[in-house]
């Protein structure tokens, strides 16, 4: 219990350290081994979306958010097909085979499959593991809004660090553009609580987390907390306008609260990792709007006295792909060979709840699966 108490002292976050110095004897290191993505082929521009609102809104959405277009599903595509496609892509970039996966966690907010717009039982994870051949994996679904995928990584990290498993997958498929169409039917002005729904795009993403081979870097820290005093700032319910949901967000307050309360949490995480914010090569925040990300980064710099070398914004092409944004962005940077061995990355999840999740890890041989040779 002494170790427990000392580890917890001073942490607001539920925080896991897998760095060699911090982890208890007998525990294992952990790393993100590969990332996969499935993007629908069909594209929808912001201009086209805004031209199809039922009311004349005069909202300059692209200027406000930085979103030019987003991928949207075509016929036959669902949360399940996007998740399965991403899981297969993840395996294609991995040294693991599907049967190696000991736990599979599906974290989609939208869980559409077949005629069901939201599957409840069996969980989507059961269908996904069968589709990719991870037949022996323990599976369950997890629901934590846009922080779902990082929450799954947090859970796998603990299981791997304790040696309970050595390889797991987190996967999400988001057919969430239905919310945009439902909002487009009702939205009238910039002050609508459904404004954030117009930023959404569809995507699937998957990540394999594995036990770190000896001597290789991996996840330094990963932590989470729920600022539940603000749990009702973003709510989504089944729609009566069309299939899928409608989401009501007090966007300005949510961003203000998140930015204000996040700074001490980021300080906690980088403190535990024994680094400075300036040591972060790539900050990948949840992708909502370019303006909000820019303001948030500036506020961090002001409060923490430093800023990361690069802040990743990929909204222009993808929009907000909800629970998959962090890993769609990471995948893009790996595919484009922008990241190199030794680069330190911070993933920053912000979600309804308000959920705040932070992961800091070092890029290693993952880059080799994406065409790197150096």
């Amino acid at each position, binding site marked *: 219990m002494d170790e427990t108490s000392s580890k*917890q002292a001073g942490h607001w976050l539920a925080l*896991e350290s897998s760095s060699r110095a911090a982890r208890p004897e007998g525990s294992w290191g952990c790393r993100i081994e590969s990332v996969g993505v499935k993007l629908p082929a069909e594209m929808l521009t912001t201009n086209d979306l805004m031209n199809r609102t039922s009311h004349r809104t005069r909202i300059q959405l692209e200027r406000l958010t930085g979103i030019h277009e987003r991928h949207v599903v075509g016929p036959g595509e669902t949360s399940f097909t996007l998740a399965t496609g991403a899981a297969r892509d993840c395996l294609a970039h991995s040294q693991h085979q599907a049967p190696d996966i000991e736990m599979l966690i599906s974290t989609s907010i939208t869980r559409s499959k077949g005629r069901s717009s939201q599957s409840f*039982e069996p*969980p989507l994870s059961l269908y996904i593991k069968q589709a990719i051949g991870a037949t022996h994996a323990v599976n369950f679904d997890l629901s934590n809004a846009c922080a779902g995928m990082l929450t799954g990584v947090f859970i796998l990290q*603990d299981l791997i660090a304790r040696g309970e498993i050595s390889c797991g997958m987190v996967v999400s498929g988001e057919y969430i553009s239905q919310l945009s169409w439902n909002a487009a039917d009702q939205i009238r002005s910039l002050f609508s609580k459904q404004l954030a729904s117009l930023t959404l795009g569809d995507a699937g993403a998957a990540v394999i987390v594995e036990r770190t081979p000896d001597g290789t870097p991996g996840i330094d820290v990963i932590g989470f907390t729920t600022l539940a005093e603000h*749990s009702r700032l973003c709510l989504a319910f089944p729609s009566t306008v069309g299939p899928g949901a409608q989401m009501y967000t007090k966007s300005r307050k949510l961003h203000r609260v998140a930015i204000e309360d996040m700074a*001490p949490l980021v300080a906690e995480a980088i403190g535990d990792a024994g680094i400075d914010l300036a040591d972060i090569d790539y900050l990948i925040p949840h992708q909502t709007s370019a303006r909000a990300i820019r303001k948030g980064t500036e506020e961090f710099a002001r409060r923490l006295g430093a800023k990361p070398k690069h802040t990743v914004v990929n909204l222009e092409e993808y929009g907000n792909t909800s629970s998959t944004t962090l890993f769609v962005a990471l995948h893009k940077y790996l595919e484009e060979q922008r990241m190199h061995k030794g680069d330190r990355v911070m993933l920053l999840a912000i*979600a309804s*709840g308000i959920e705040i999740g932070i992961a800091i890890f070092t890029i290693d041989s993952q880059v080799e699966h994406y065409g790197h040779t150096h």
Partner: protein
Amino acid sequence: MGTRIEAVSALTSHGLRKPTARHLAEAALRTCLAHAGKDPGDVDMLINAGIYREDNMGEPALAALIQEDIGANLGHPPIGGHGTFSFDLVNGTCGVINAIQIESGLLRSGVIRHGAIVTSDVGPSLKDPGTAPFQPTGGAMLLAWDDSISGFTDFYTETFPEYEDLFVSGLVWQGRRGLRAPGRPAGQSQMVIDEKPGYRARLADCTEDATRRFLGRLGIGIDEVDLLVPASSSPDFVDPVRARLGLPGDRVAYTGEDLAGAYSTGLIAALQAAIKSGRLGEARNTLMLAAGAGITVTLGLYRQTPP
């Protein structure tokens, strides 16, 4: 050293005409914390493993709303304090054991000191709450680390996807017919729960197989199981499984009549009965068992040395 069950609470809607999943889970958690002599602020992690809700809210996690309602670590994150991390886990009636496995691991790692799990289910439509195949119930469990007991030592999950179509549920969009007047709903998403013939028989088959495999791996004979704490989506599930395993009826924690028909709360309701009767405290090896759609069977072994 292991994870100890500090307290549990399971309750019904007490005749409320329109109970909500959030209120049931919240009420159970308050009672559970009172039993344990703990404050809401002591909860480091809150996992909601309930399934069916009156409003089918998609986000945030219901656990976050419950965290706010009980007042667990609200306000700005102060330096030196500790917060609460809340999320939902979805795996039918088996989700509770998955949640125990997650929190048990984080307790072992020292990441959390107290982990709470809540469950609740109500009819998916407030307009017609009587259509659900279960009784509205809520449950809560508080877990903590204990140096003096082994606690939860082993977990096991097995799925039988050849039976995945025997029990299926989900929201299906049903559009209104005819012309839609401006401002009127175009339709609604309705919960469809489809149980096919043969599901309950297969559930018992799969449970027996998985339980035997789990005990076989651990090298434990069925005669060494002092107490079986079962949960299932099927009310006539327990006795056939017990008989197949060759376990005497006096080694089963049956749920009280008032909580019969509990869904995701089934395991916690059975645990409550075992604690109230004193049988959990007397058992050396307690086997927790849940089975449901998938078909999924999840088991957990809880070990302690009785006084």
